[in-house]
């Protein structure tokens, strides 16, 4: 230091200070140099309206709450219903204490399950088809390639129609156009968790109304609910046959009845 002299020493210190500042700034500002854009790594397709939701992060929350990444505006979906994450060997879905549970390809899951390309996930009455081309199911039986080109929800219907040999009716929630396909013979609508169509809304009674298939006709009856069940604006007394296009109101939630889903 002594050999630099007074001015040399000052110059050295100035250079040292400025280059420490310069180096720290350069190395840390390089961190912000991120020109990667958004990468779509998976996709959800809403079966009710065919709308596609792109997923560009490794963790996505689904639910009715506005803070969720994918908001499902449907009273049968819990506020924080599920989380879909990309882990190790593929994608996983976690049930986060939801009221109505999650089914993957028609099977109810317990807390968590792996999901693959083309899987159909239903939460309450909303049905989503999952797409992520890198992760395919190992056994082809569950994911028949012949149905690859038809939309996900129709594929289920087609499979069911083949097995039952008759038309499949459906209920469409008129608030968000979500869909309930009527596969079995009897459906109970209500707030209680043992109902087939669970509507966790306080205006709906625990057991609100009942849909029964007699021959090829669906009949609607009220189950002594508080608010009653209305068909096309009139209270239902006894059991009433349903026709395509009928509007059912169960405790303030409106459904449109579709007699033959495949033909519409």
């Amino acid at each position, binding site marked *: 230091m002594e050999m630099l002299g007074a001015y040399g020493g000052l110059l050295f210190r100035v250079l040292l200070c400025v280059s420490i*500042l310069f180096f720290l700034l350069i190395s840390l500002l390089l*961190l912000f140099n991120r020109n990667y854009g958004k990468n779509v790594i998976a996709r959800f397709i809403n079966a009710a309206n065919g709308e596609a939701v792109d997923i560009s992060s490794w963790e996505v929350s689904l639910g009715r709450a506005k803070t969720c990444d994918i908001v499902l505006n449907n009273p049968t979906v819990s506020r924080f219903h599920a*989380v879909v994450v990309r882990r190790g060997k593929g994608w996983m879905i976690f049930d986060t204490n939801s009221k109505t549970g999650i089914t993957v390809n028609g099977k109810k899951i317990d807390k968590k399950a792996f999901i693959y390309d083309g899987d159909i996930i239903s939460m309450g009455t909303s049905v989503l088809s999952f797409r992520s081309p890198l992760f395919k199911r190992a056994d082809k039986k569950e994911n028949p390639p012949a149905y690859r080109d038809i939309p996900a929800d129709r594929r289920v219907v087609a499979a069911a129609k083949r097995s039952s040999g008759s038309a499949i009716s459906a209920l469409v929630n008129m608030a968000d156009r979500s869909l309930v396909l009527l596969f079995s013979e009897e459906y109970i609508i209500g707030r209680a968790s043992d109902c087939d169509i669970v509507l966790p809304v306080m205006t709906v009674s625990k057991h609100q109304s009942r849909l029964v298939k007699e021959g090829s006709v669906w009949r609607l009856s009220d189950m002594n609910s508080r608010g009653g069940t209305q068909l096309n604006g009139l209270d239902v007394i006894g059991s009433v046959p349903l026709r395509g296009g009928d509007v059912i109101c169960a405790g303030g939630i409106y459904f449109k009845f579709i007699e033959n889903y495949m033909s519409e």
Partner: protein
Amino acid sequence: MAENVKKKRNSVYASDQKKRTAKKSTKKQKNYIPPDLELKKGKVREKIGKWFVLMVFLTLLEAAMDLSALNGIAEEQLPTVLLLLGGYLAAQWVYYIVAGLMLRRRMELEMAGFLLSNISLVITASVYPDRLTTQLVAVIGGILVFAFLVWFMGNVNRVTVSRMPIGLAAVGLLALTLVLAEYNNGAKNWLYLGSFSIQPSEIVKVAFVFVGAATLDKIQNTRSIAKYVVFAMVCVGLLFLMLDFGTALIFFATFLIIAFLRSGDIKTIVLICTAALMGGVFIILYKPYVANRFATYRHIWDYIDAGGMQQTRTIIYSLSGGLFGVGLGNGKLRNIFAATEDLVFGVVCEELGMITAIAILLAYVLFLIYAIRSAKYARSSFYAIAACSAAGMLLFQAILNVFGVMDILPFTGVTLPFISRGGSSMLCSWGLLAFLKSVDIRTYPKVMRELYQQKERI
């Protein structure tokens, strides 16, 4: 006939469309490899040019600092000091060759950490040349901890599985310290293991962030947050019993950040703060010796040569340094007790200049801005929360240290991350830096590769 024509036209149109989309996709493929990456043998890799240039610049800068640190060191200690500082330069190059050249990783955070650690090393070399070996071992240990943690956090499953055992180990370590430690400078926070001593609260800081951050499925589960609240309360409570208020305050601030990030609710934070304030008032009312620790706060000039000596000297001498400092070895603050630990900010101001001091503080601020900015690109909410809370912890600790010695906040005797002398503190600083490194998916080439593969097909 008309039908036929229509069909033909359709088919022509379709094939044309196909060609067009094909062209588009190839164009996209070329475009979406960012300019600082290259695709070789199906692998996305970092280009190495700019890191080499920066590394050479860093080495020259550090060599200049090392030479200026030799001013005033006794003749017989010169060879060992030169050897140790040269060894640090060599260690950096070894890290660069392994991580930057062989594994093709980005180096910006490490380089900032290298430079900050070097400032700590030259100050140690200049003030306590005989303690340089310990400090060098601490810095190299810190870099190893950093590398290990970055590797460890590469796998999300490994992280989720290990959170519980790490939390239990952290609480156990703090409890052990409370039982075994003896009072040292008014706090009971040192554990002596034979010839060397550690400060467990510094190591628990890393665990505190690690346990606090959680994946999204855990966040949506209410039971998980209850567990974390219990863990945080136990940690802060144990630190209070050790009378280590500075560290307890850092833990509490980090807890607030984590609680906010996990709940997204500012009302909860207000409630927590109110509860903590009431608790603090009760402690001061019923345990007067706690208040006595802060008797000189805002009155340092009344006790110039007693309780306020460290702070008054720091303020006076750091001003005498000016913008560019008086040069290493020419300062006066170095003769005060704890000059290289609690008062190190004053030493930097005096000997290396205000510009260096501001550059160091700017680094902490940039860490936090970077953590917040990169949170939305993170692989999991674990990384986002961990990075934001780790950067928040570093910045809060720096604020507590700098404003503490300036008498703006109570003087709690916490260290300045990366700059203060002390092994545990250095290990903790590098450990927290690992959270910032792992939030970036560019750290993990496997993840990047998958991202690009997926984009090609969807």
